[in-house]
């Protein structure tokens, strides 16, 4: 398995995996029984466990041509449902480093960003065309470039989108917010000193 994301993430290069379907929720990405753990370590093998069992080896996450893929291509509202970070953790530990889709549930998007996994969007038609290209030639390498906001193969390229804030965080390597949040402790202290509910509701 390749190393987890670290530092600046200008681009992600590798094979892609197409997973079709709308509103794929976090319970499907990682069923609740696998949340019984105190570490994320084992989640990679459990991603989409029930869907995979149902398809008996034919699920995209089981098919040989998609093993080792780094870019997941999905449809709309991917990652809806729970706030469980176990979902992106499972995808990341399976080997994925980026997700391209029509739209993402908000908490899922934020959880991915906190792990250095870009979630970029494109129109339904574009996603359809990317998925078809991936299914037709699963062995081709794609490059997701966050500077130019293009997803390209050797023959085609597509425009993708991401808001400037998260994009800047990934490009600059400042997607792991903890250190910045801890740094601003003086400002934080000042705010706490004036918040009414922390100060016996005195507002004057």
């Amino acid at each position: 398995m390749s190393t987890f994301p670290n530092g600046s993430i200008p681009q992600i290069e590798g094979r892609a995996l197409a997973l079709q379907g709308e509103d794929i929720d976090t319970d499907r990405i990682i069923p609740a029984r696998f949340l019984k753990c105190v570490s994320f370590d084992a989640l990679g093998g459990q991603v989409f466990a029930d869907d995979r069992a149902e398809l008996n080896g034919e699920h995209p996450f089981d098919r040989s041509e998609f093993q080792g893929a780094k870019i997941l291509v999905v449809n709309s509202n991917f990652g809806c449902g729970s706030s469980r970070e176990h979902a992106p953790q499972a995808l990341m530990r399976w080997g994925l480093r980026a997700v391209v889709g029509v739209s993402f549930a908000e908490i899922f998007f934020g959880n991915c960003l906190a792990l250095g996994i870009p979630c970029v969007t494109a129109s339904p038609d574009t996603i359809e065309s990317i998925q078809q290209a991936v299914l037709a030639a699963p062995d081709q390498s794609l490059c997701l470039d966050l500077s130019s906001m293009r997803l390209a193969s050797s023959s085609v390229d597509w425009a993708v989108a991401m808001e400037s804030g998260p994009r800047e965080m990934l490009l600059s390597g400042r997607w792991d917010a903890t250190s910045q949040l801890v740094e601003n402790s003086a400002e934080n202290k000042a705010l706490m000193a004036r918040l009414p509910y922390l100060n016996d509701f005195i507002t004057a």
Partner: protein
Amino acid sequence: MSTGTLYDKVWDLHCVGDLPGGSTQLFVGLHLIHEVTSPQAFAALRDKRLTVRCPERTVATVDHIVPTTSQARPFADPLAEEMLSTLERNCEEYGIQLNGLGSGRQGIVHVIAPELGLTQPGMTIACGDSHTSTHGAFGAIAFGIGTSQVRDVLASQTLAMNKLRVRRISVDGQLADGVSAKDLILHVIRVLGVKGGVGYAYEFAGTAIEALSMEERMTVCNMAIEGGARCGYVNPDQVTFDYLKGRVHAPSDESWQRAVAWWRGLASDGDAVVDDEMVFNAAMIAPTVTWGITPGQGLGIDERIPALEELDPGERPIAEEAYRYMDLHPGTAIAGVPVDVCFIGSCTNGRLGDLRAAAAVAQGRHVASGIKAFVVPGSEQVARDAEAEGLDRVFRAAGFEWREPGCSMCLAMNPDRLEGRQISASSSNRNFKGRQGSASGRTLLMSPAMVAAAAVHGHVIDVRRLSLNPVKA
């Protein structure tokens, strides 16, 4: 962008500053933690040699993995026991208040924080659980976060957040008898869709919302996340203040007066600007039941499962998947669909009012043969109050099991789960594939009274057709 709404006011009050990536550093007034999404956050804290910035603003309980039959320690499930003991160790080490089993204050995190008066208007509240939106019922801005963010809040008491747009959902008029807050929110999600709220905070307003009790408002805000909204809220009013008065962590004496004055001023201004507004007529809402695999696939009790051609093209693929998974066919009336298991509880509908509504149906009736029906109070306090009113006796006499508090079969991280293809009538919040513990189990979401009605008839039935027998304490 919105201006003058409660969301804007609370956001501005909690802004520590702008972060380099363009997001805002937001102070978190109350951080709620539980055993499922916190252990990895504490581990990361140790890795980074950080400590808990405001242990006094962090409150813990245990809910998801708790068994509802016997809560004797150690738990029969070693993984569940390990999760609880890890939480206990973390709380002990960092000086965090833990409302543990048998403390009298344990329960589902979104049930206990309001009942202890921890949840108050004007706060920002975060918790590693998507149903944190529940606390918006008090005029707080409350949202679910992932484990990396739990780590961030532990370390700094702040979060990196982007401001949402505000959509006002005005529900005017009066809900018909037998129609509940659960029906209201299932109806709203049906109309706006499960992704309709992405990017929005939902402000629930209008005369029908104002007429709801705090518990009912919690049900509505709880499911804002099911409509894709990160948070939902109701402006604080006298109903809010009356609920809070006298609670353990609520302000008292002179600070109470100051608190109420401040809370009143937080409500959205009369001339507040919102980014979007949707208006609903409460009188048009029927008891609502989901038939599919997303909370947006709902039907009024008198309706039939829609045919593909009746749906928007965008909704057809998931509808086809739902027909297959649920084994329910277009044109079938939702009333009359047989059920196997009936579950009353969860952070959506495990409060005292929910149990009263279900008990009024159960009183003098009996669970149909072959049906497993059980009631799981949302907290130890709810259990005590319900028992004081005799609701447990009503349920038991009617053939329901009366359990210990916890999340139970809502997500089945404990021994309560569907088996095989069983179909449940459930008062919880999600009907996703596999949600209730069986990879092929099926869930019909509905109000607690409707679940009780399904239990006594063995199939989905309009609760308005039954006479109710409110239980006298």
